[in-house]
């Protein structure tokens, strides 16, 4: 059998002091969760007409129990975070150290900052990179950091723009040799493959790498501090920060930004309380130790076809589990500020992202039992699966409850079941009793688990004097109320989608891998109708049938039915930046970064808003720019390297493409044709020279542009 390099006798850094504490804490969590779940399940069975005696009711109680355990885990996580933050000192915080020890960073240590991108908005990516670069320069330690733009873009126009923007940024910042660009021809294994490709080619140059998302921004002091922590604690394999979502203007994004900033720190501190060194990697805004990452974290392809086979989509969870399997610890630095990301701007964008994540998390079903993983990471895999599985279970719970309501309404009750008869004569009747007090008690306890964390967060933020950063106590209170209302309204809509995603994934339907929309453009009515129309009709039919058969049950689930019926306008209105800006003017859903905007975020905003000087110069973009602009053309040729020898058939086909491009212009070429020409240095040279050699072009010519018509 192949020997495991991670096998127990070779694992690094075992028996660390925190592991026993983590074990005790996790046992405590189970001791709190399980009794409350059993109590709630028992209470649920008493609420049901047959006291959980039928198969249908048993299924309802079982599903309810799992859901209750799930939300109670979230609740106790926030409570743990509350006490951690209230105390203010956490001896297990990975960043906890004396200042003198912190400052020691070995002279040869270099850190790569990676920006894996795939058809992203180029200007926004460069703005984030630029802000991070300048922030690092301000710390005086920028020389120890290199930036790498790792492109997987398959859109030829984006490809050219990325190259040009990189060159422009290098020129502007004088950062040649500090900022690098590399584009893969084949996008194997998507983002994880992109990072792995970097590691194979350039990883040996670096001790650490910080992985960014396309919309990530981090401050220089935070990056320097992360390197210091990694230097001090040589047993840490991955150090994850808790990124704060910022920068969006649509209503839904602002509400989520507010929720993440108000309650997120409690949740992150709570997660740290349970996980300690068994934490998770979230795929970005984290620093990784390159050597063990290369040794242990390369991901295999799962056997079988997608969606449950093939490339591992949610690679980050698996990478942290593998890093931990090799003995390196994974920490969540919940107390490190200066780490930012952006939220999806609309509900539909969020759901599009969720579909990808759902498929990735469902793949973990096949990894839960992988040999050698730590139990904590198996639990984290299950936790990830439950992030979407819970929606499926909630939907199942509602469906089963509806069936129960139908059955109870449409069947004649048996007042004298066999058990109550003596010698075939009924002695006493059994009345179907339903006591709403128990149901209300159950609903209240569930409500407490869901909403108490928000009140806890409010109280502690006021107690710590941070209310001002959220617009003041009154604004914050109103924002929490608004957030509760909106999240309650959107929860059933999300539930329906997530349930569909889980079902589709388990049934073998694959999802696409597109880039994320990062614009505040809003959702059109047509788009909303197309995506939410089915859910709305389903909700209306559900409500109407219950109104006919069992109106009492309808009153209990009316919030869900109403939300589903209103899904279309909810999706449209929450995606509007105008409503988000109105909320901002009213002082609602404010986050600390809006009250006191960090310098880095200001830079990002300004740079994103300013058009590129180079692009403005030629008034061309994409493929046409690579043909006309001498700088873009020369840069592109340089990036391509040596020309390849081609067969005469290919050469002839490409020559005909060149002729077509010259005759009909860049817009007449398909993406595939543009890419084929862009890959061929000889074709690009020929196109460039022939376009410039054309006589002064009249208006309306396919290549007519400012520089060629003047």
């Amino acid at each position, binding site marked *: 059998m192949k020997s495991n390099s991670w096998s127990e006798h070779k694992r690094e850094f075992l028996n660390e002091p925190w592991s026993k504490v983590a074990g005790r804490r996790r046992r405590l969590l189970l001791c709190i969760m399980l009794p409350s779940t059993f109590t709630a399940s028992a209470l649920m069975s008493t609420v049901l007409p047959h006291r959980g005696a039928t198969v249908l009711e048993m299924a309802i109680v079982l599903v309810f129990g799992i859901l209750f355990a799930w939300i109670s885990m979230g609740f106790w996580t926030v409570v743990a975070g509350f006490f951690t933050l209230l105390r203010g000192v956490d001896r297990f915080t990975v960043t906890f150290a004396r200042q003198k020890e912190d400052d020691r960073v070995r002279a040869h240590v270099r850190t790569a900052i990676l920006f894996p991108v795939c058809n992203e908005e180029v200007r926004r990516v460069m703005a984030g990179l630029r802000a991070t670069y300048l922030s690092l320069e301000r710390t005086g330690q920028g020389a120890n950091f290199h930036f790498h733009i790792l492109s997987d873009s398959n859109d030829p126009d984006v490809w050219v723009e990325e190259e040009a923007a990189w060159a422009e940024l290098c020129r502007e910042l004088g950062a*040649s040799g500090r900022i690098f660009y590399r584009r893969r021809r084949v996008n194997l294994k998507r983002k994880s493959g992109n990072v792995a490709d970097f590691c194979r080619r350039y990883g040996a140059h670096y001790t650490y790498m910080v992985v960014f998302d396309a919309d990530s921004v981090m401050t220089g002091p935070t990056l320097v501090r992360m390197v210091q922590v990694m230097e001090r604690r040589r047993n840490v394999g991955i150090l994850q920060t808790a990124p704060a979502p910022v920068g969006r203007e649509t209503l839904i994004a602002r509400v989520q930004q507010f929720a993440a900033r108000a309650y997120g720190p409690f949740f992150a501190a709570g997660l740290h309380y349970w996980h300690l060194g068994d934490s998770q990697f979230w795929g970005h805004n984290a620093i990784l130790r390159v050597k063990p990452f290369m040794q242990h974290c390369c991901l295999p392809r799962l056997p079988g076809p997608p969606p449950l086979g093939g490339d591992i989509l949610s690679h980050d969870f698996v990478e942290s589990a593998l890093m931990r399997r090799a003995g390196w610890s994974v920490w969540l630095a919940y107390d490190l500020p200066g780490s930012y990301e952006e939220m999806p701007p609309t509900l539909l964008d969020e759901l599009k992202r969720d579909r990808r994540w759902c498929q990735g998390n469902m793949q973990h079903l096949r990894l839960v039992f992988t040999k050698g993983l730590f139990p904590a990471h198996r639990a984290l895999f299950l936790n990830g699966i439950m992030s979407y599985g819970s929606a499926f279970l909630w939907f199942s719970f509602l469906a089963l409850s509806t069936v129960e309501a139908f059955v109870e309404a449409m069947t004649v009750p048996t007042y004298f079941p066999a058990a109550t008869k003596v010698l075939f004569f009924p002695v006493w009747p059994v009345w179907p009793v339903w006591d709403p007090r128990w149901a209300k008690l159950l609903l209240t306890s569930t409500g407490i688990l869901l909403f108490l964390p928000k009140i806890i967060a409010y109280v502690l933020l006021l107690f710590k004097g941070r209310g001002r950063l959220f617009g003041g106590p009154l604004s914050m209170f109103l924002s929490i109320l608004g957030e509760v209302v909106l999240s309650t309204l959107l929860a059933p809509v999300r539930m329906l989608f997530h349930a569909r995603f889980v079902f589709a994934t388990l049934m073998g339907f694959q999802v696409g891998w597109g880039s994320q929309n990062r614009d505040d453009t809003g959702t059109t009515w047509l788009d909303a109708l197309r995506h939410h129309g089915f859910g709305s009709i389903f909700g209306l039919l559900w409500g109407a049938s219950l109104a006919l058969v069992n109106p009492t049950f309808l009153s209990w689930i009316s919030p869900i039915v109403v939300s589903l019926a209103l899904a279309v306008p909810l999706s449209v209105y929450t995606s509007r930046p105008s409503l988000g800006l109105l909320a901002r003017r009213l002082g609602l859903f404010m986050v600390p970064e809006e009250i006191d905007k960090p310098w880095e975020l200001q830079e990002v905003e300004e740079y994103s808003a300013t058009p590129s000087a180079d692009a403005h110069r030629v008034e061309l973009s994409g493929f046409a720019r690579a043909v006309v602009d001498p700088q873009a053309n020369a840069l592109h040729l340089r990036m391509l390297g040596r020309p390849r020898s081609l067969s005469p058939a290919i050469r002839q086909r490409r020559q005909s493409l060149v002729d077509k491009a010259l005759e009909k212009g860049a817009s007449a070429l398909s993406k595939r044709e543009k890419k084929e020409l862009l890959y061929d240095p000889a074709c690009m040279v020929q196109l460039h020279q022939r376009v410039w050699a054309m006589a002064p072009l009249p208006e309306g010519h396919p290549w007519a542009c400012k520089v060629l018509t003047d």
Partner: protein
Amino acid sequence: MDTNRTAASGQRPGEPATAETPSATAGGLLPESAMDPALRRVMAYLRLAALTEARKLHTAEEVLERLEAEGLGGEAAVSRALELLHHYLPPAEAFPACLPVLRRHMTPEEMDRRPWIAWLDRHTLWPRLASTLLFNTRWEQVLQALALTLFCLADGRIDPRFDLFL
């Protein structure tokens, strides 16, 4: 890069090719208006090129001198001017640097996703070997035969003394 360009335009490295259509005023001075379009195109190109101002000026001077010497005018001049320009154009300056590749391996470690299969394989080695050696039969089939025998025994189809079938 320059080599590519020269090769692609079908010229030999070295001196630029001579014009195919000599002008009537070859060797003489052309009126400025005849060279205007070519001049404007060369200037437009150089404005966009990544060169220092001195290099741009020098290149423009070289191109125009040569063009004037060849005595072309009109549309042919534009084409010829750009041909000359691409010949005289020095390599673009100030490209961003690329990091040298330092290649290393990164291969997936073993991920036994179903350890119970390996466990079963490990723990059924002896029965498998025994069934193969003794009965020349797969051990699953031996198990199957045993299960069938037990079932028949329980069902009363086989005499427990194994001497009679009912």
